[in-house]
């Protein structure tokens, strides 16, 4: 120890209190040390906190109080006061309450230096708050969900890295270009206004919005905006969380289609049964006619019955096709009662004999604005669930009624509208509240083995939501279940009337080439059109048709073209027609025309299609139209 230092220390030993100066009675902890870190003096506040009285502390080194982890750093700086640019030193110190964070502002005192006075403040609370802040901000930084924090007016203050990655906009870009982050995805001003109305009223807003990504692709996001409040309960910030659900939506769409196919399996049994009945009817009447060819009245009656059976069969086929097709959703006016009657008839055939159906349909139910395909799926899924809930058999009751929007239970329905209510009640096992709470979750199922996908009710829920309807469930173990579906009634819709059937159609004298590999069908068309005055040529497959078309001697005004044929397909024939006789009129007849095939044909300039099964009346009318167009063009 050099001279000047020892002299100061010597003074200190005489009057240690003097080193503290005006800090003696301060409430702030203050101590003085020499260059070796020995405690020279401490005020009362220091003693209170660190429990070292003047006597106890005589000769102790200050570093005894410092946390081991910070000791090296403390010791390295013990001899010199902090330089001008250095901020105060912060370490953990052992107090009577344990380790606390203290920050010390140090100054050299005495003329020659050698004594350092340190004034300390407990910053534990601030320090822990800062650490917590850093921890939380790092957690938010790593979140796989996009997060945006704005002020109460929607001005962006924070975006997490996921948001930057998904949107391509950094915080600086957003501030730079004043990007309306909360507006993004709202399809209209109205929707954005509604959003603000919800948020301003202090409620949480949730929605699924689509918008374009920087690369141009469409992205669906599930968005939740909630209010962050201060201690006084005022909204200070909005927290917006956005999750990319594009993939989930795509999967849902696929699952919906898969579930539809599953339902189709259920239908297939019923349809087969129906078809057998129809075939039996047709066969029976055909036999009667053959046996009584002389009795004109009986033959005519038999043929009428056969025709009715055919109409029923074609209705069935149409139903199964519309159902299985991944068709665009088409909302049109729909008679719910008729739909229920048709389906229940079908299901009654396929469900076990122990399951009875009861119908309680309110007559005069106004039409629904709905997608027929999807409503069928609802009825079907609910009935299938009802059946599965009654392994020992029971009764499924389907009811329809009109319900005013205001009277609906626990739903936010339009109060001034009327709803159609569809109820499916079973007398089965019922559900516990726990099960009831989860039934609309995808993949939730109580069915054993692989009897169910757990998608049925999730699909029902999705369909009802897309129709702006609501759903409720009443059930108790042992007391059966009732599912209620409420769908808004159409305000001004009229059910499309069934076209009145007429057996006669206009004839003609043109030459018609009939191309179909179905022997019976070709003969039928040949007979029907020859009788109406047309000159007919028949081709039993595509190759033969091509022979006729490429032969310039052969006069043809129109072609009735089937699509699925062995040899050359309808499309191949079409191409030959376009090459040899581009002006030749063609009417395409098909059982099932895929959108791809349709596009192919349309690219070749083909506009006229008729779907099987058709009536002769329709076909005749359509052929006339095609030929007449030909003339006027």
């Amino acid at each position: 120890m050099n001279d000047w230092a020892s002299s100061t220390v010597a003074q200190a030993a005489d009057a240690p209190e003097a080193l503290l100066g005006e800090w003696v009675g301060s409430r702030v902890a203050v101590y003085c040390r020499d260059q070796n870190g020995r405690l020279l003096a401490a005020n009362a506040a220091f003693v209170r906190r660190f429990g070292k009285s003047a006597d106890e502390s005589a000769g102790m080194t200050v570093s005894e109080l410092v946390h081991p982890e910070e000791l090296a750093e403390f010791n390295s700086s013990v001899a010199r006061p902090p330089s001008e640019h250095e901020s105060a030193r912060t370490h953990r110190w052992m107090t009577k309450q344990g380790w606390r964070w203290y920050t010390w502002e140090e100054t050299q005192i005495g003329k020659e230096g050698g004594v350092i006075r340190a004034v300390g403040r407990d910053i534990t609370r601030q320090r822990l708050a800062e650490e917590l802040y850093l921890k939380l901000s790092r957690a938010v930084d790593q979140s796989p969900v996009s997060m945006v924090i704005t002020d109460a007016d929607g001005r962006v203050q924070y975006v997490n890295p996921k948001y930057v990655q998904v949107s391509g906009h950094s915080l600086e870009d957003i501030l730079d270009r004043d990007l309306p982050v909360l507006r993004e995805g709202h399809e209209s001003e109205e929707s954005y206004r509604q959003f603000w109305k919800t948020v301003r009223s202090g409620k949480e807003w949730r929605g699924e919005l689509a918008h374009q990504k920087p690369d141009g692709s469409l992205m669906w996001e599930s968005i939740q905006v909630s209010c962050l409040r201060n201690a006084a309960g005022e909204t200070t910030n909005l927290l917006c969380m956005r999750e990319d659900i594009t993939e989930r939506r795509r999967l849902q769409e696929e699952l919906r289609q898969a579930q539809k196919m599953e339902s189709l399996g259920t239908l297939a049994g019923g349809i087969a049964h129906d078809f057998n009945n129809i075939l039996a009817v047709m066969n029976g009447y055909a036999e009667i006619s053959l046996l009584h060819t002389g009795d004109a009245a009986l033959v005519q009656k038999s043929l009428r019955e056969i025709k009715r059976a055919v109409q029923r069969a074609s209705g069935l086929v149409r139903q199964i096709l519309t159902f299985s097709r991944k068709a665009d959703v088409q909302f049109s006016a729909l008679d719910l009662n008729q739909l229920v009657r048709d389906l229940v008839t079908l299901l009654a055939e396929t469900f076990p004999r122990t399951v009875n159906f009861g119908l309680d349909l309110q007559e005069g139910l106004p039409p629904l604005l709905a997608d027929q395909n999807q409503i069928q799926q609802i009825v079907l899924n609910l009935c299938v669930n009802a059946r599965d809930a009654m392994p020992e058999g029971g009764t499924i009751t389907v009811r329809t009624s009109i319900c005013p929007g205001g009277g609906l239970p626990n739903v936010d329905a339009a109060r001034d509208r009327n709803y159609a209510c569809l109820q499916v009640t079973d007398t089965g096992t019922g559900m516990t509240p726990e099960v009831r709470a989860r039934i609309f979750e995808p993949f939730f199922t109580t069915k054993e083995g692989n009897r169910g996908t757990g998608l049925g009710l999730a699909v029902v829920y999705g369909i009802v939501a897309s129709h702006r309807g609501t759903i409720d469930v009443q059930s108790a173990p042992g007391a059966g279940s009732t599912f209620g579906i409420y769908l808004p009634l159409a305000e001004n819709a009229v059910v499309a009337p069934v076209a009145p059937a007429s057996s006669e159609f206009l004839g003609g004298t043109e030459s018609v080439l009939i191309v179909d590999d179905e022997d019976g069908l070709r003969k039928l068309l040949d007979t029907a059109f020859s009788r109406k005055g047309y000159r007919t040529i028949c081709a039993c497959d595509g190759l033969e048709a091509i022979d006729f078309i490429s032969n310039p001697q052969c006069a043809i005004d129109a072609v009735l073209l089937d699509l699925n044929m062995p040899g050359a397909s309808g499309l191949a024939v079409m191409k030959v027609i376009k090459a040899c006789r581009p002006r030749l009129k063609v009417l395409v007849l098909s059982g099932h025309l895929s959108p791809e095939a349709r596009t192919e044909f349309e690219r070749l300039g083909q506009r006229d299609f008729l779907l099987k099964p058709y009536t002769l009346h329709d076909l005749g009318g359509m052929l006339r139209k095609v030929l007449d167009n030909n003339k006027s063009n």
Partner: protein
Amino acid sequence: MPNSLVSSRNASAPYTDEQIRRKIDACPKLASLQSINKQLTSLVNSEQSLTSQIAEIIRLDPSLSSRILRMVNSVYFGLSANITDIEEAVFFLGLRQIRELSRATPVIEELTRMQNTQFGPDLWKCLWSHSIGTAILTREILSSASARAEDETNYLVGLLHNLGKIIMAYAFPDELMAVASTPLHTPGEVCALEREHIGWDHAWIGAYYLERHHLSKEIVCAVRYHNEPDQAPEYPQYPAAVQVADYLVRHVGVASGFEQVEPVADEAWTRLPGWQILFGANETEAKIARASLANTLQRLPEILSGLI
């Protein structure tokens, strides 16, 4: 921009106020020097960096400084007093934001190489040196002139006083070139020529930009009036100090970029309105200021050469 900041407009100027504002608003992110950007990038990519180290680098760059201040003041807009401390700004925004900021920084050397612009990197380096020198001296002058509390505003007003020129390089490149290639006598003549070519001078342009981005009134005012501190409606000591610092820096040979102005003669700054505002009333203070400035002036070229 309140009209008070745009006064004595040249009526025959080629652009209307509205056109000028629109051009400034459309300005992309202001570019930085490569050397500074490199240092910042390596700092922010290291987990051990201290906020103070990062702030030290940002303080060397008027573009970065104005970008980070506008960000932090936009984020905390209306919540508290303006933030004028770079270190605080770095802390509030967080290391990640600074990393994003540095990643999105256009680098002047790359721009000039790619775009073959009329402004070479040397002009920019000159502007940077001048800005930093002015900042250091402004801080020095203000600390000797008044007993005001130590505040980073003292430094920032000097650093940002020529931000308008960086903006002009984007918004009015041809006009800036025309001014830069005309030999002139004083900084005041530069402003007059700018107003003739554009309608506003670089002080107005810089002030408009900074005000629009929520920087503090003191900074906006200092930038706006740094060539005419006697016109300043409030906080005259800031523009006054910038004006004096600007002259001192020119005197030691660090001319502002993008102009050709004659070097400043010794003691010329004591005849400026800025000097009058700061030291006019007190002979003793003026003396002390002269002595301490002489000291800093000697070291300045050395300090600057190490920075850029």
